[in-house]
């Protein structure tokens, strides 16, 4: 087939776009490992910057992990039963509830953070604690967990599964735990990976809600970008990349796996 000029143009534009997205990431990895970014690669490479970042910001890394795990636990406890309830209920009510719960995705994080601070700013201990940040993260990530679980529930025949187990005499909560949950596992796993990834990267809400004692990784990054030399800022970015890229690969593997299973 003769190659059209339009398709050549498409390849060029796609290649430029890919470079635009990928090159800065590679630059930040390089800058975080270079002895001196401005002097170029001839100055050599070092892990000193990463070490300095660890000394300065290790607490933000641990806090981000704790916040992400707590967020995950809460979204599982609230979101999974909630998603099942909405699918069971169906109709206008379920749609309205889903619309409200999804609001935090549509509304800028800054507005939500402001609403939470105005409401709970007076509650000193809660406002000062990491839990306050967790609440913000749950608000923002819950719709993703619920959507993921609802999507799987809509593809399986949960009613027949539930009725079958009921006819064998299992009580409702046992049927939920032993029959429904194992069947929605792909949705829960995909949702969980998304929740953890989003939580680790969340900035807009967290920047407004954090206190000096509850800084997360992206908050620390903003601080480093504003006040540290380029090599340290880049090394800190490497730490962030090392945390999220395996999660992103996990999300894709789960998606591919589910696609293959439903296709066969």
């Amino acid at each position, binding site marked *: 087939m003769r190659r059209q000029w339009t398709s050549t143009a498409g390849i060029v534009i796609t290649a430029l776009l890919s470079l635009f997205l*990928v090159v800065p990431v590679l630059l930040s990895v390089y800058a975080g490992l270079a002895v001196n970014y401005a002097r170029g690669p001839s100055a050599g490479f070092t892990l000193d910057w990463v070490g300095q970042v660890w000394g300065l910001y290790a607490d933000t890394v641990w806090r981000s992990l704790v916040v992400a795990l707590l967020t995950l636990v809460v979204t599982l406890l609230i979101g999974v039963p909630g998603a099942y309830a909405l699918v069971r209920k169906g109709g206008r009510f379920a749609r309205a509830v889903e619309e409200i719960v999804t609001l935090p995705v549509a509304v800028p994080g800054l507005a939500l953070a402001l609403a939470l601070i105005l409401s709970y700013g007076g509650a000193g201990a809660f406002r000062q604690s990491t839990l306050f940040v967790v609440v913000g993260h749950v608000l923002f990530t819950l719709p993703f967990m619920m959507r993921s679980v609802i999507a799987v529930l809509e593809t399986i025949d949960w009613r027949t599964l539930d009725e079958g187990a009921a006819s064998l005499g299992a009580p409702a909560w046992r049927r939920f735990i032993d029959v429904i949950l194992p069947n929605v596992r792909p949705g829960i796993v995909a949702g969980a990976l998304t929740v953890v990834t989003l939580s680790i990267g969340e900035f807009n809400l967290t920047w407004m809600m954090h206190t000096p004692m509850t800084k997360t990784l992206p908050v620390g*990054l903003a601080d480093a970008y504003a006040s540290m030399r380029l090599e340290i800022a880049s090394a800190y970015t490497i730490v962030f990349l090392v945390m999220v890229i395996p999660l992103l690969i996990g999300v894709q593997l789960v998606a591919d796996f589910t696609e293959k299973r439903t296709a066969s």
Partner: protein
Amino acid sequence: MNSRRFDFFLILPLAIFTLAFLILPVARLIAEAGSGPQGLAGFLVILTEARFRNSLIVTLLLAIVTTVATLAVATIAAQTLANRRFTGRGLLLSMLTFPLAFPGVVVGFMIILFGGRLGLVGSVTKSLVGTNVVFAYSLFGLFLGYLYFSVPRVLLTILAAAEKLDPSLVEAARSLGASPFAIQRDVVLPALFPAMYTGGALCFATAMGAFGTAFTLATNIDVVPLLIYTEFTLATNASMAAAISIALGLITWAALAIARNRAMRDVKGG
């Protein structure tokens, strides 16, 4: 336990959380916005006060330009990637989607590495023509940052639609002598429209609400989210910040709602 009571217990945690941390705070935000010195007129402050109105206009224009540019490059890239199989395709797609997980601050930093004082473009132009071209902190740098975080999500949405498009339709149109533009207009774009609405609305809403990128680039362009932040923290004017937040929230929510309804109607109609 009867089924009604079971349903109640399933939804109870969600109901409590949503009531305590979403519905009540949003109600509080609305009350706060109406309690400023101007009273209920405070809700319209984003339109009545010149400084806020200008900021809204700049933010709207930036979001619209970002959306148009993102849709254009994402549609081209999606068609290029859709039916081509080449080695490293999976890796390329993964790398193109990584920025999805980057917070706005990291995107801002990527633009600094690209066009900042020590940036790539600057060092290339310096060695070629002797001037260090720096654009990261300008409106153009902000636009590139918005493009950076918008392209991956829109590309994924459109790519999914482009892969469903039957290549034989395009082939048939071509063999009938249709020009590339006619094929785009009559065959490809109508099929991609639902995905373009959804992706475009998502892109617009994200661009309107983006904070981290503008914050990192520290430009002197006051986009609306930056305005909310400065009003609240520096001017400690909570009611003003609340009023602007509500206006911004309504704009982004409406954009998403309109696009979703439109896309659904198209899918049903087609």
